[in-house]
């Protein structure tokens, strides 16, 4: 391999580098800068010490717990579905994958808003429940509704990577497992599951990260005064108080580090880096 790139190659890379600097590196630097400065822009840890005293830690814990629940449910729902899809014929597979992607074509806010209509006390679901004699079940404004909203919104991100990995498993390997004495169930647990680990890891990443930092779902579907860490960040950045940007940045930074740690732990489980999942 040639180490020295030609001028043309460097020119081709220029737009990408420019983009990265402008929209990834620079904003990150600004966030870090704000996080470590106070309202008079002098260096300080005050944002972080404040963060640990005003109950933000509890919100962090809650957000991680909710994201964890939503991710687990997504995995449990998506894995069998992805497996089932991969067992159908090529043509059906394309249709089913497209169908599972379909909700993503609709705007995220609109989807969540529509969910609240379905779940509200006089909404579609409650009407159905009432017609079979179950009255007064409160679906909306519950923690469950928030998790449901997360699962509903992020499920496709779990199905897609798992399906793409399972459908690429060599059919001969599955036959070899049957040949050596595996029944259907054992084939799944001993061969398909371990081989689809990279897909599972990237699916978890793609569901967990947006779940942890979401803010609209909790506002729309959660109980009154219910806040997740995304809501806290949003509030700070919308506020006009002098120190709010600094606090918001500090929380964002902590969240980023937390997510990074979670992902590092996840990727450690799938020790095969060569086929490792996508890190968002």
């Amino acid at each position, binding site marked *: 391999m040639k180490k020295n790139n030609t001028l043309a190659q460097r020119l081709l890379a220029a737009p990408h580098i420019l983009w990265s600097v402008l929209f990834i590196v620079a904003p990150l630097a600004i966030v870090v800068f704000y996080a470590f400065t106070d309202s008079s822009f002098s260096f300080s840890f005050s944002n972080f010490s404040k963060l640990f005293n005003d109950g933000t830690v509890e919100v962090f814990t809650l957000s991680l717990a909710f994201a964890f629940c939503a991710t687990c449910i997504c995995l449990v729902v998506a894995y069998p579905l992805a497996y089932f899809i991969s067992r159908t014929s090529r043509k059906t597979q394309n249709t089913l994958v497209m169908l599972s992607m379909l909700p993503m074509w609709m705007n995220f806010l609109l989807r969540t808003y529509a969910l609240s209509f379905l779940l509200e006390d006089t909404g579609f679901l409650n009407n159905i429940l009432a017609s079979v004699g179950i009255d007064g079940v409160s679906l909306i404004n519950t923690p469950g509704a928030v998790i449901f909203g997360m699962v509903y919104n992020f499920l496709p991100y779990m199905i897609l990577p798992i399906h793409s990995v399972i459908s690429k498993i*060599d059919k*001969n*390997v599955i*036959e*070899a497992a049957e*040949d*050596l*004495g*595996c029944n259907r169930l054992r084939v799944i647990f001993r061969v398909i599951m371990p*081989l689809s680990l990279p897909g599972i890891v990237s699916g978890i990443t793609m569901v967990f990260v947006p779940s942890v930092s979401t803010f609209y779902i909790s506002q729309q579907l959660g109980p009154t005064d219910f806040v997740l860490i995304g809501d806290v960040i949003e509030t700070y950045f919308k506020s006009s108080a002098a120190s709010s940007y600094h606090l918001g940045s500090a929380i964002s930074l902590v969240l980023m580090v937390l997510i990074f740690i979670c992902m590092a732990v996840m990727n450690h489980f799938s020790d095969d880096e060569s086929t490792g999942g996508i890190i968002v």
Partner: protein
Amino acid sequence: MSNKLLDLRNISVCFDDAVILKNINLYICDGEFITLLGPSGCGKTTTLRIIAGFVNPDTGDVLFEGKRINDIPSHKREINTIFQKYALFPHLNVYENIAFGLRLKKMPEKEIKNTVEEMLSLVNLKGFGKRNINSLSGGQQQRVAIARALAVRPRVLLLDEPLGALDLKLRKDMQNELKSIQQRLGITFIYVTHDQEEALSMSDTVVVMDNGEIQQIGTPLDIYNEPKNAFVADFIGESNILDGKMLDDYRCFFSGKEFKCLDTGFEKNEPVDVVVRPEDVDVVPVEEGMVCGTVTNLTFKGVHYEIIVDIGNFKWMIQTTDYQPVGAHIGLKIDPDAIHVMKKSEYSGKFGDYSTFSDEIEEMSINDEEQE
């Protein structure tokens, strides 16, 4: 060797209206090394997959020790397969690959360890247990696949072109090794290949297939010396196949001449196909020749020359150790035991004429097959 282990009766298979197997009848004896030989698309792999339990025949029965096993799934059959592309488990190391089937049998850990070690030494991979599958060469992966299949002590081992991906030298070594493993363990081997040399050198019995039908079953010697039709004669080795007539017992007629032969049992003047192997013909001076012709092509093959001789517009291939220049007029002597007479078949006239023969074309077609 005499008792039937596997019996295929009237097996037919269609995929999407295409007939893959037509009424296959075949029995396989315990401890036999049997090879299914034929060009790609002849149905040999499908036959193997039926025995393994991956394909269910549309009609017909598969019997194992006299019991019908059509409905027994592959994981309950005492039959194991070595796949063309090895199909090793990429998430397990060599040791765990070989132990895979044993763990399913709930064998105690100590026995597993002993068996795996035994298998590793059987395939000359001692000390490779901890290695990652992807770090092995093709030949080593092949050995792991063999060890993995043999570890569960199958009654029958199915091998689907197992050496197809190896280079020539390695393939020869593995042929010998497979044959000796088979003889040592006494397991029935059913081997699929399109390589006729491989089939002849390894097998007790060769089954030649084409177009979803069995063309001939026999020992390698029978298949080579007494081919049943023009397809078999052409597919196994080189053959000059001539349009001829059986005048009477021991007397046949082709190339405008009458020849003495050893064949009997034909009608008087029955039209037949006559096979003469290139190595069975002696090149002699014109005046001593039973037939005469002109050399049109000469290829040096190492052990011998391969010459194409035009005799009455039919191009013969002759193998001779003497150099014959192109354009030379030579005579050929064909002994009675060099002539093999076959009944006419659907393949008559399609094979055995070297007028369009060129080394290049043959090499191209071999490459095509290997790519599949």
